């Protein structure tokens, strides 16, 4: 048996048994029992499994475990802390502003795609705090929603953007 690999997920170092070629998704869901990233296509087409790797949205279903060695993985569960670090807040909020905005907009239907929607939206807001509608459309285009909630995700990202601007004041 090979030596267990360690990965850094949501600011914690975790030792995992999976082989280095295992897609990160299966490590996160089966070994670490995280429920944010989830299987959608296994082909990198839909965004269901998205995580942030060093702050960059990445499809965990087509990313081998070895590719995230020495990097920092943030999942949906870790977004409030990711946001707190980015904004230099003394402690993480209960929810990332985008998660909060999605509740306020009552945006989702089944919600299965919202892991990717939130992770990608949070990435966008981290580098483009006041995105235009065109920027949101472009950034989010790789994330599919079968229930047809795109207009509400748009509104939620805009709402979160406004809420984050308030935090900075």
């Amino acid at each position, binding site marked *: 048996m090979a030596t267990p690999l360690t990965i850094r997920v949501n600011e914690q170092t975790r030792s995992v048994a999976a082989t280095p070629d295992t897609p990160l998704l299966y490590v996160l869901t089966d070994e670490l*029992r995280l429920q944010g990233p989830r299987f959608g296509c296994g082909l990198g087409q839909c965004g269901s499994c998205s995580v942030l790797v060093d702050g960059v949205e990445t499809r965990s279903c087509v990313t081998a475990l070895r590719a995230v060695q020495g990097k920092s993985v943030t999942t949906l569960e870790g977004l409030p802390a990711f946001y707190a670090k980015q904004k230099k807040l003394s402690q993480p909020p209960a929810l990332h502003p985008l998660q909060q905005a999605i509740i306020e907009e009552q945006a989702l239907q089944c919600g299965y795609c919202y892991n990717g929607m939130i992770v990608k939206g949070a990435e966008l807001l981290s580098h483009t705090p006041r995105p235009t509608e065109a920027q949101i459309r472009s950034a989010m285009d790789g994330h599919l929603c079968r229930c047809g*909630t795109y207009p509400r995700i748009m509104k939620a990202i805009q709402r979160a953007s406004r809420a984050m601007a308030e935090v900075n004041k």
Partner: protein
Amino acid sequence: MSRPLVPRRDLLKGGGALVIGFSVAGTSFAQELSRSAGRALVAGPPDPRQIDTWIAVHADNTATMFIGFVELGQGTSALLQIAAEELDLDISQVSSVRLDTHVTPNQGATVASASIDRGGPQIRAAAAEARQALLTLAAKALNAPVEQLTVSKGVVSVIGSSTRSTKYGDLLGDRPFNIAFTGNAPQKPVGQYRVVGTNVPRRDLPDKVSGRYLYVQHVRLPNMLHGRIVRPRGQGAYADGAKVSSVDETSIQDIPGARVVRRHDFIGVVAPNEWDAVRAARQLKATWELPPSLPGDVGVYDQMRAARTIDTVIAERGDVAASLDRAAHVVGATYRAPYQAHAPFGPNCAVADAGSDPALVMCSTQSVYGTRDKVAVVLGLPANKVRVQYYEGAGTFGRSCFDDAAQAAAIMSQAVGRPVRVQFMRWDEHGWDNYGPAHLADVRAGVDAAGKIVAYEYHGWQHVWSTIETSEQLALGTRAAESADGTSRNLNKVTLGGMYDIPNVRLVNHRVPGVNGYLKASNLRSPLDVSFAFASEQTIDDLARSAGIDAVEFRRRNISDPRWLGVLDAVAKAADWTPRVAGSTASRANIVTGRGVALGTHLVSYGAAIAQIRVDKATGLIVATHMYGALDAGLAVNPAFVENQISGQLIQAASRMLKEEVRFNKTNVTSLDWNTYPILRFGEHPNVTPIVVQRPDARSTGAGEEVIAAAAAAIANAFFDATGARLREFPMTPARVKAALTRSNDGQRGDR
């Protein structure tokens, strides 16, 4: 050998043989378990004639409703609003439990937008009867007649004597009602509603946005193996199933713990590690007979027209032939609509423990009792020896592969003697779906000189629904079979011109035998209505144009039903519709815009939509820029939920009209993922304006499917308005757009 299933209350303590191996996230789930504890020991359905089947009142002055409809993203918590209303409880005092064939009543499948339409009256009547019983107890306890009692938030007090009060929880706390459900208790008048008709927020959102929500894909059992099905990539003809030619089990021997499960033509693999199961399914050397018995996606329409069909006249009045002869203008055309996929965003998943007693299956079904029967067949057990629990998955929009996955998990679990979790891969779900069936239509209609529709004739060809799941077909050799005729499988006489006052009508349903030479099929959201409206509402627009009348005005002239007029006027107003004849502003420019209107429904409710689109003639690309949808679903119990449903239907209509088509060749389906079965993307989505036409005095009816057909047809009509060309086949892809524009130009040249 079977072992007993641990009573559910023991699950809480984490002891016993069966521990649901996920972390019990949050308190809601634990509470839910305790509130259905004790009910889980007997196979259901529980007796619907007992009030205790429907409701339990707890010592903490809250109530649990036992509801037989599943949450599919539509907001079944609207049913709790109905319960809270009748019980005079605050909405925070009522909750429901997971659907479970050992716990919840059988209210039928969660289909046809029936949760509110069919389930609402049952829940309302049960809650009213429970309230009546509680007031009888209170009258005794407070020594006052029932007529002098008033209830607020479960506190019963004597009118004019506020110190004399008691609580539901004190009167009954966790004890059974032990009374019959007669349905005769008086119900609250609509005018006194304070919970129904308000926008109570969804309860599942905080958990869903934070990763705490337990989807079926998260469920794990101790000692469980991961399973994957192994089939050809993409189904062939339904009757053919997938006949195995060879399987080389040694081809996966290098994968730790992986093994093949084979039962006749059913092949699966299991492994302790999920990625190993995925690899094993991919690596297993298996070959199948792939007979060329399909017509291909282009040839399917000719095959349907040539089929020996079973013909039924769905509606007939007046004399269509004679009135067409006398009409001022007659229009007519043939329309084609493809197979389309449910394609849930997360492929179906099921966890089964066939060795427990009863056998346990956890999956994302639209009918726990229906799935129980199907699982019992493959396990060779009576239905009451199978327990099915509902865990939400991704939105399914009809019968996707949930029963197939449930059967596959049960078959594999029985074969290996351990719990098995089967996750369909993307190509399994896309390739082995029960698609919404293809449709072919011939339509003719006529209008008189005054702009009144005088005749309407519709011939429609399609096959009905497959009833045998593929896992069962392969494992047991069960012959492919189809459902009977029926609603949602035959022509819909409302969506097909039923909103208009037409004196001469003839609707003929040509049922195509769909077992040999066709794909598996089943109900896809608003079954067939998108196809029907695409043909019918373009015909109505053709009539309007031939009569030289604006499309909204033309419809107004031909409708007398105030509810159809209500949604038509509401949507026209929202879209700021100004009258002009469709296509009258079509120009020679390369980029053109257009707008279209259409009506439609599924069973009841009234849907109207307007689409605004942009067409690039050079590329053939259509972009829906703004969609408006008005829906009258009677009294909207939660108008915000209805708005969300309308918005979703507008987006999905654009997707189905512009992008979606199941492609297949002679041997198999080739639409196997999001590249080969594209859906509308974020960057392409239109703005949406949902309009809820609230009707407090009308019965609450479905809202999940009743505007998608109108929305789809509105896009088709907008295309004509933009270009002056008709597209009579969807999806309206760039290639088809360019071909239609070329035909139209040729036609105009020919006219000169």
